[in-house]
């Protein structure tokens, strides 16, 4: 070791990094060298000070920023989240809206709690304060294992700085709303949820006076790790019998019609439960389905479950089950799972995704068309019999049916969610309501398309299958698989997937054509003569390739512009033949002034390299085409 330690060695020793010399040797040196010891102490002072800074710079539980204001202010100056209040140490912000925050916090004893904070933009009225007290009183009387227990409630600050707090037992788990993001509920799960929620509702309705939650929805139902469902957010709850004229609370879509005019009774929460179950089954917010002509009836589920749901969400309260107890009895008697269990439920026949979505996605698909044409040329080289029988794809995978030309589809009207404390808005903007699973499925589908266009058919099959794993009823993914298998000369699989496509999308514009293809494949599989290659190229097919390949000629114009600029703006007429293998022959320049020019030679060479789809029969020609290169 040198006479003294370097700055880096001292610093690394203090911060606990690798020093580069044996630690005992370093310690021995520090014990004897006053100078190095003093430097090390100075470095330690800085390190100690940094710990103090770190302690003073608390991390905001809301925005996770280091707060530069230590103990004086208990609220983050960036997002406004509180750090600690009345002995509750805030750990994180669970949800927040403009008028409330829900924190995860701990008591001084280390017990995890949920702390609901109500904030106000103006001085809260006496009515608001009374309502808060009433909610606290109501919560205090509840004693059910699937309802979080109230721990305490209190007020902080005054006037416009008033903050009202409710501390409740923390329930670990995920809301059903959150689960919808990456989980598809089957009938069995939905029925189990119904059973558990009904048990909670039966308890609430058995109280005197009965308690109505008034805001049952997926966001307020938490699935705990043990599978138990907990009902949370009693901010809308009332402990009255049937009442009229109350303030409108609840969430549009989950509220029965009579709740809109403030009328609630024992069937109110049952209707909301029914709407919730339908949402879970269909993955669509109920306001889209519980319309005058209820679309949800097309949901693919057992008849018994459908009947049960029909009674839950009956328009007329008199047609619903009388109360939660009666509903539980009916549910038990129905014995939904003695028979068929549907693993996944979707709305039948109705377009799986809103058309506007497809319009957006269609733009992406349309952008792929030029690439598709290139591929058309590429794949046509194979010239297989199977390829010839493709449903006029020309090697192009079409965007999902109905994409092109619907960009002017009307948006669904926006509908504000009226939920209280809603950090989980189910707004009804259809154009933006992309289901993450739908998007994931589309992404896989799109990747499949790209793979097809690039001739990576095995990859495309894998991607289309991935799309189908996410959404087994994704018709266009079946169509893509049909094409991919056809390219791989697997008519059996191709037919199977085309068949599925037609089955799922019987009303598609190309359905008849695909049906014909399926028939062709079936016949081929049964030993009938296989599909024959195209007998010749049509004029439009030739035109497509020419138009798409014109850029090659423009390059000639650019390259030769220095020499032949004067002529380049003129028309240049070219003649050629197409051989049955798709290659060109005898390309000649017919316009005299270009015959012996560099530009003419370039054009001739370019066209000689073009490839058209192969066909059976005589060479096609002569083809004469007037190109204008400007």
């Amino acid at each position, binding site marked *: 070791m040198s006479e003294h330690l370097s700055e880096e060695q001292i*610093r690394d020793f203090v911060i606990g990094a690798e020093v580069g010399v044996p630690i005992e040797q370093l310690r021995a040196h520090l014990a004897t060298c006053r100078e190095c010891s003093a430097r090390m102490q100075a470095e330690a*002072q800085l*390190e*100690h000070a940094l710990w103090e*800074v*770190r302690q003073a710079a608390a991390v905001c539980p809301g925005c996770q920023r280091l707060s530069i204001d230590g103990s004086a202010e208990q609220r983050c100056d960036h997002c406004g989240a509180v750090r600690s209040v009345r002995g509750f140490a805030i750990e994180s912000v669970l949800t927040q809206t403009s008028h409330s925050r829900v924190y995860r916090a701990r008591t001084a004893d280390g017990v995890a709690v949920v702390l609901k904070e109500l904030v106000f933009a103006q001085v809260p009225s006496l009515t608001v304060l009374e309502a808060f007290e009433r909610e606290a009183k109501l919560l205090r009387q509840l004693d059910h294992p699937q309802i979080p227990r109230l721990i305490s409630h209190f007020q902080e600050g005054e006037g416009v700085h008033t903050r009202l707090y409710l501390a409740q037992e923390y329930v670990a788990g995920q809301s059903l709303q959150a689960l919808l993001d990456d989980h598809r509920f089957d009938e069995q799960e939905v029925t189990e949820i119904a059973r558990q929620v009904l048990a909670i509702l039966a308890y609430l309705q058995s109280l005197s006076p009965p308690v109505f939650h008034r805001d049952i929805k997926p966001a307020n139902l938490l699935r705990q790790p043990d599978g138990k469902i907990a009902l949370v957010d009693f901010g809308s709850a009332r402990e009255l019998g049937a009442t009229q004229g109350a303030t409108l609370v609840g969430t549009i879509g989950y509220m029965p019609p009579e709740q809109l005019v403030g009328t609630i009774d024992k069937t109110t929460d049952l209707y909301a439960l029914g709407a919730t179950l339908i949402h879970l089954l269909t993955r669509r917010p109920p306001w889209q389905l519980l319309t005058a002509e209820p679309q949800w009836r097309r949901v693919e589920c057992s008849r018994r479950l459908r009947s049960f749901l029909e009674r839950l969400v009956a328009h007329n309260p008199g047609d619903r089950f009388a109360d939660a107890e009666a509903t539980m009895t009916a549910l038990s008697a129905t014995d939904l799972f003695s028979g068929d269990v549907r693993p996944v439920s979707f709305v039948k026949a109705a377009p799986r995704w809103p058309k506007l979505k497809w319009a957006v996605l269609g733009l992406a698909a349309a952008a792929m068309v030029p690439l598709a044409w290139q591929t058309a040329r590429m794949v046509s080289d194979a010239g297989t019999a199977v390829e010839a029988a493709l449903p006029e794809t020309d090697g192009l995978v079409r965007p999902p049916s109905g994409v092109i030309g619907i960009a002017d589809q009307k948006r669904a009207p926006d509908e504000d969610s009226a939920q209280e404390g809603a950090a989980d808005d189910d707004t009804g903007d259809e154009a933006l309501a992309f289901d993450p699973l739908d998007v994931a499925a589309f992404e896989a589908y799109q990747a499949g398309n790209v793979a097809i266009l690039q001739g990576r058919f095995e990859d495309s099959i894998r991607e289309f299958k991935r799309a189908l794993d996410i959404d087994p009823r994704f018709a266009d993914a079946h169509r893509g698989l049909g094409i991919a298998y056809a390219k791989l000369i697997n008519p059996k699989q191709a037919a199977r997937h085309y068949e599925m496509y037609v089955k799922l999308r019987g009303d598609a514009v190309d359905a008849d054509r695909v049906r014909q293809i399926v028939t062709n494949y079936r016949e081929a599989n049964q030993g009938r003569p296989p599909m024959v290659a195209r007998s010749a190229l049509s004029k439009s097919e030739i035109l497509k390739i020419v138009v798409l390949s014109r850029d090659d000629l423009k390059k000639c114009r650019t390259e030769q512009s220095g020499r032949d600029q004067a002529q380049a703006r003129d028309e240049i007429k070219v003649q050629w033949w197409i051989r049955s293998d798709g290659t060109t022959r005898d390309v000649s320049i017919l316009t005299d002034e270009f015959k012996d020019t560099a530009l003419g030679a370039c054009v001739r060479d370019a066209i000689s390299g073009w490839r058209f789809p192969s066909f059976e029969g005589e060479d096609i020609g002569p083809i004469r085409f007037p190109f204008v290169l400007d």
Partner: protein
Amino acid sequence: MASEARGALLRLLERPATDAFDWDAAIRCHHRRLCVSLLALGLTIDQAEDVAHQAWLRIIERQRAGLLRELRLPGLVIVQARFLALNLLRRGRRDTALPEGPGDSQPLAVDDVDPENRLISRERLDSALRVLAGCSESARAVFQLVYSDPPLGHAEVAQRLGLSVQRVRQILCEVRAKMRSAVEGSP
């Protein structure tokens, strides 16, 4: 003396405990920080080690005797250790009329009851916080994790932030350089 306290601590830890508290883990986690805080007071490295062991010893004995209502680490052990250290330094001054460590050492004086010193400490802290606020997002993230409670090793910080260990150290050194002027009171 250092080995005496260390030996006593080891013997204590070897004794079967009635509680399930993992003292080994606690010491592994906080010992470096404890020693740093003692070095910052002006103790030599041997003194710091010795005082740290004594502090752990006392805390563990009190905890096992059921004398501690709550156990907040590392705060409790640091307070205990600094109390022992200040006693040691006072004894040293009495004996030699000079601090035992380097004479020009000026710790941040968090234990100082002199209002003026407290004010200076507070101002330095505020200044350091302002410097921190001016650091980049990644610098603050590294700082936040390296000095988290419990502290994270540089490798773990690197893993969490998706950086290389080398980069974490580089950022840390940059932050330290910026903070140095603030906490040492230079303009």
